[in-house]
């Protein structure tokens, strides 16, 4: 699955552009399966896509339209989906998109991982599925607020290093 290092992410959103272009031939963040949470007032940003987490609350899908693929990615059976958005709402880090009555999960571009290819700072990399997001299961709010919360949860050690004098060349 796609992992983003918040120390390296510069918030350019090239990953969103690459993702929506790869899947739809058009650009809009709403079409992207990876989204960049930007906390501009504290200088922190991080890209978030489905991490294939250990908890997988999205599998609560009431119509059983979701299954797990070979790499740990979530697969959608379109005919079964009734666009109830349960999966969108329960994702602890707001990583499930939704556009035109359809949830959007990172599908690793079928292996092409276009976001990793385009990322100019190498902040994005592949990581095995199965990381625990238990710490985020109780977070409330809209997906975009959960993404911001996730970014904020990564901020403290980075900002502490800035305070201690760690500079970009270090």
């Amino acid at each position: 699955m796609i992992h983003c290092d918040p120390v390296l992410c510069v918030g350019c959103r090239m990953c969103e552009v690459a993702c929506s272009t790869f899947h739809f031939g058009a650009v809009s963040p709403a079409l992207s399966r990876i989204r960049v949470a930007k906390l501009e007032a504290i200088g922190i940003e991080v890209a978030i896509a489905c991490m294939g987490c250990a908890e997988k609350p999205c599998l609560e899908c009431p119509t059983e339209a979701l299954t797990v693929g070979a790499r740990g990615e979530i697969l959608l059976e379109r005919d079964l989906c009734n666009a109830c958005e349960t999966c969108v709402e329960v994702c602890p880090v707001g990583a499930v998109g939704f556009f035109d009555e359809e949830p959007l999960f990172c599908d690793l571009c079928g292996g092409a991982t276009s976001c990793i290819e385009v990322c100019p700072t190498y902040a994005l990399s592949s990581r095995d599925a199965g990381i625990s997001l238990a710490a985020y299961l109780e977070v409330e709010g809209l997906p975009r607020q959960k993404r911001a919360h996730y970014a904020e949860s990564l901020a403290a050690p980075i900002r502490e290093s800035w305070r201690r004098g760690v500079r970009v060349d270090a």
Partner: protein
Amino acid sequence: MSICRGRSLRIDLTTQEIDRGLTPDNGIGGRTWNSVTLLEQLKPGIDPLGPENLLCIAVGPLTGSELIATCRFIASAKSPLTGYLGDSGARGFFAPELRWAGHDQIVFTGASDRWVYLFIDNDRIEIRDASHLVGLDITETTVQLQTELHDPDIQVAAIGPAGEHLVRYAIISCNLTRAAGRTGMGAVMGSKKLKAIVVRGDRPVKPLDPQRFKAACALLQSNIEGHRQFESRRMYGTTRIMDSLAEMGVLPAYHYRSAVYADLAKVSAEALRRDHVVKSKACYNCNVYCSRYNYTSYSEGEGPEYEAQAGFTVKCGNSDLELGVHVSNMVNRLGIDCISTAEVIAWLMECRHEHVISDSDVDGIDLSWGSRDALLRIPQMIAQRQGIGDLLAEGTRRAAEKFGTSARKLTAEVKGLELFSADPRGIKGYALMNAVNSRGGDHYRGEPMIELTGDEDLAMRRVGNPNAAHRLAEDGKGALVNYAEHMGLLSDSMTICKNISCCMDVVDFDLAGEAYSGLLGRDITAHDLWKVCSRVSQVERDYNLREGLRPEEDTLPSRFIDTPIPDGPSKGTTVDIGRMVKDYYGEKGWEAGAR
């Protein structure tokens, strides 16, 4: 010929009416639409801070597309600083969001009688109360709106206290620090009691000829990645030019009294990166990511770019870089243009040095070179119009009228707009650009950077004169500035970052033609685009002539014409500006500048 036309929102802030229409039919996006709108719809002679002025915010067909760094919106209105056509672009992420919301231009008319903000969520458009935002700086306004709207991703373009107080060089900023900085567009927004514009959008931008568009995008990307400045721009952004300007001998140290700054190493790009830059930052879809986040013991924020870095250090004779960076953070939050603000402070310091004014003329502020007191207090006083700040908020031209002839002779402005942090005497193309362009004293209308390269082949290819490749040559600069103006206007219409398109010279009219053709799905040639830029450039000139512009104003302050650079590598240089202006008029086909 019609190339592209966009959807235009018309917001009457007096009556609160919202109309949907179309942009002018004869542009290519961004500045071309705005300038035509203003020429056609503004009455001559209006008060720029009155309800008759229009504030136009435009993006273009390429904004928010896959083409790298199509990230800018252009704000245009009659300028309260110059009285002529004002416009300025801001990078970041607001512009693509506006495009995704399905709006290509917003035209604000009239003025509200209470503070409001405009809310846009695709087709849902509302004028909302902003009384709770009054007095907040740009960061506070942005965070407050994102919090109360439960949307940390929503894009906000706002004014700060300076815009509220009609400071004539107030800015409009998005993403906290990405400013439409020049010519006082924030003051026009403030005069309409419009505190912010908030936008959320999800409409896809889809090229109609995907293969052709993809090829143009790929060409631009490879032009950028193969560019000799690619790595240094990633490392230092625009601050990289501090050292090169020093090597050329065109630093404006102590307000143009010296081209040599002894403490350069303390305030250089390297020092900034070593001591204060904690990470790189990017604008929308940009692989150069040349912006940087700073952390100081006073404050933190994005920036500074070269202008703020040099303006608050070298120009003011301040060798304390950390203080300069903090002042940059502060003016961003207050919402004043860093170029004009640095020029105001440096000019006052020189006036005091020359005994033209004393500290008691400026509320007892210590105006010695590099004064911490001045750098910390003056921006606040300007933004709040407190004490002497009320006069300084009018800009150096108007303030100098108050301080007398000797003070006026020390100003560095053209048509009321303050000059950048470089010495035009040693970079003749930039000197001419400052003298003749529609905004006033401004280097960024388009960048005549070819004169800094020494690349005669490039100069031949672009403007047909190898001399244009040399910064101290005056020959060939009319053609160079005309070309650079066209490139600037093209960039302001593509809404692409000018640091990329103009300064790196990685976009030309052919590439732009391919991008427009791919996006719109029909043939648009380089020649088509050049013709539109020529015509709109004339529209801008016509607007200014209608407002009373006299050709005599196409000049530089006399200090750059009469007095040579006193020291350093360009020692002894002055500018024969009259000769170059004539050359430029010839390129434009103007009789003695009448048109």
